[in-house]
C-alpha cells in the first residue's frame, strides 16, 4: 500500500518536474521481453525511464541497481525493493558467483530489464564505454529484444550530490531494436550498442 502510494508520488513528481515524455522512434511500446539500455547521468534516470513506459509494461520491467549503494540504508532498500522491484547486482568481485546471476534469474522469469551499461553515473555529456554485461546477456538470451534509449537533459534535474531536484523538461527516446551479430566480437558489439544510444541524441 505504502509502496504503491510512493510509486504514484514519484511518478507524479517526475511528471511535474520533467514532463517525462517518451518518444518511441525505432519501435512501439510492446509487451515482449526486452532489455532497455540507456545512458546514465542521474539517479532520476531510473524513474524517468520507468515513467516513460506505459503502465502495463512498468510492472514487468525491472531496473538494475548496485547492491552496495542501494541497500545501505533501510529507506534506500525499501525504495528499490518494494517500490521499484529492482534487481540487485554487486559491484565488488569478492563473491564467487557470476555478478550477472540475478539478471539471468529475472530474464528466465520473463521479466524485461532496464540496464545502464556504463555501470555508474557519468559527469560529461558523452557516455562512458559500456561494460561487458550487456554483451553477456545478449549472448545468453538471443531471443530477448535489445532496445537502446537516450535519456535527455535529466542530469540537470538532479546532478550528482544534490538533493533538491529542479524542473527541466526531459525526454526518453527509444531507438530501433538491435541484435548481436553472428560471431560478433565483444568490443565491436559494445561499441555498436553505445553508438546506437548516442545516435538517439540527435533524432
Amino acid at each position, binding site marked *: 500500500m505504502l509502496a504503491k502510494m510512493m510509486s504514484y508520488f514519484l511518478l507524479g513528481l517526475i511528471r511535474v518536474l520533467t*514532463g517525462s515524455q517518451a518518444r518511441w522512434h525505432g519501435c512501439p511500446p510492446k509487451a515482449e521481453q526486452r532489455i532497455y539500455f540507456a545512458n546514465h547521468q542521474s539517479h532520476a534516470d531510473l524513474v524517468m525511464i520507468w515513467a516513460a513506459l506505459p503502465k502495463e509494461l512498468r510492472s514487468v520491467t525491472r531496473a538494475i541497481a548496485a547492491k552496495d549503494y542501494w541497500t545501505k540504508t533501510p529507506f534506500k532498500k525499501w525504495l528499490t525493493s518494494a517500490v521499484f522491484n529492482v534487481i540487485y547486482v554487486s559491484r565488488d568481485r569478492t563473491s564467487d558467483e557470476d555478478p550477472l546471476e540475478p539478471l539471468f534469474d529475472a530474464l528466465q522469469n520473463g521479466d524485461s530489464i532496464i540496464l545502464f551499461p556504463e555501470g555508474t553515473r557519468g559527469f560529461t555529456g558523452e557516455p562512458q564505454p559500456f561494460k561487458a554485461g550487456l554483451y553477456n546477456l545478449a549472448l545468453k538470451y538471443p531471443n530477448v529484444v535489445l532496445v537502446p534509449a537516450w535519456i535527455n537533459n535529466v*542530469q*540537470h534535474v538532479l546532478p550528482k550530490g544534490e538533493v533538491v531536484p529542479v524542473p*527541466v*523538461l526531459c525526454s526518453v*527516446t527509444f531507438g530501433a531494436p538491435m541484435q548481436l551479430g553472428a560471431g560478433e566480437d565483444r568490443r565491436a558489439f559494445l561499441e555498436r550498442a553505445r553508438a546506437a544510444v548516442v545516435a538517439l541524441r540527435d533524432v
Partner: protein
Amino acid sequence: MFQMYYYLKNLSPTQQVGMLFVTIFGLLLLASVGAFLLSVREHADEARADFWRKELKSLDAMLRTSWLMVLVFWIGWAAGDWVALTLFAIVSFFALREFLTLSPTRLGDHRSLVLAFFVVLPVQYALVGGGHFDMFTVFIPVYVFLALPLASALANDPLRFLERSAKLQWGIMVCIYGMSHVPAILMLKFPGYEGRSAFMVFFLVAVVQVCMVTQHIAAQRMRRKPIAPAISQSFNWDSWGLGVLVGSLFGALLAGITPWVPGTAFAAAFIACSAGGLGHFVMKALKRDRGIPNWGAEGQSVTGAGGLLDRVDALCFAAPVFFHSARWYFGV
C-alpha cells in the same frame, strides 16, 4: 440595444460575471461545433482536403487554448482569488520550466534554480495575494537580482557567468514577474468597482489575445516585408498596427465591464496590446538565439516543451505595463 445595455449595467456584479462566462462558453461551444462539422465534411480533391486539414488543426489548437484559458478563469472566479493566484502560479512554473530547458544552465546554477522555482515563485505570488504592491513590484528586480547570482557565484564556477545569470534573471522576469501581474490586477481597488476585478483580468487577457490573433492573421494575409527577417519572418509594422488597433477597438467595446468610459478603455487596451505585440517579438529574438522557431515545435523538440510560453509570452509583457500604467494614472 440601449435597453440591453442598461439591463446588463444594473445586474449585480456576480450576475454580470456569470453572464460573461455564459456568453463566452456559448461562443466557444458554437466554434467547437463548427470546427467539428467542418472536419467531417467531404472534399472533392486531395489537395483541398489537405489544406483544410492543416487549417483545422491550427484552429483546433487555438480553440483548445481558449477553452483552457476560459476554464482557468471560470475556476479562478468561482473559487476565489487564492485559487486564481495558484492557477497563475502553476502557469508560471510550467512557462519557466520551458524557458530554462532551452537556456542550458551549468551544474553550478543548480542552487539558484532551486531558489527560483521553490522560493522566488511562491514568495512572489504570496506577495501579490497579500496585496503588498510596493514589495511585489520590487521583489524580483531588486532582491532576487542580487540573491540568485550570489547563489551561482558561491558554486565557484566562473565560466560564462554573466550569460548564465542574465538568462536566469530574464526567465524569472518574464515567466514569474510578468505573469504574476495578471492576477495582481485582481487586487487593484478601483472606486465603485468592488467585486468586479475579475473583469479587469478578463479585459486584459481578451484584448491581448484578440490583438495577437489579428496580428497573426494579418501578417499571413498581407505578406508585407518583414522588418527584421533574421528574427521574425512575419513581424511588420502594418500587421502589428492593425493588431493593436483591432485589440484596442475591442477594448473600447468591452468598456461596459471596466470602470472606464470607452475612450479610457481604448487607451488602456492600446497600451496593453502594443506591449504584448512587441514583447512577443522580443521573445522571438530569444528563440532565434536558441535556434528554435517555437518553444514547443511539434515533432522537433527533444525537450517535449508544450509551447505554453508561445501562447503566454505576449501576456507576460503586457501585464506589468498595463498594471503599472493603470495604477499610476488612476492612483489606485
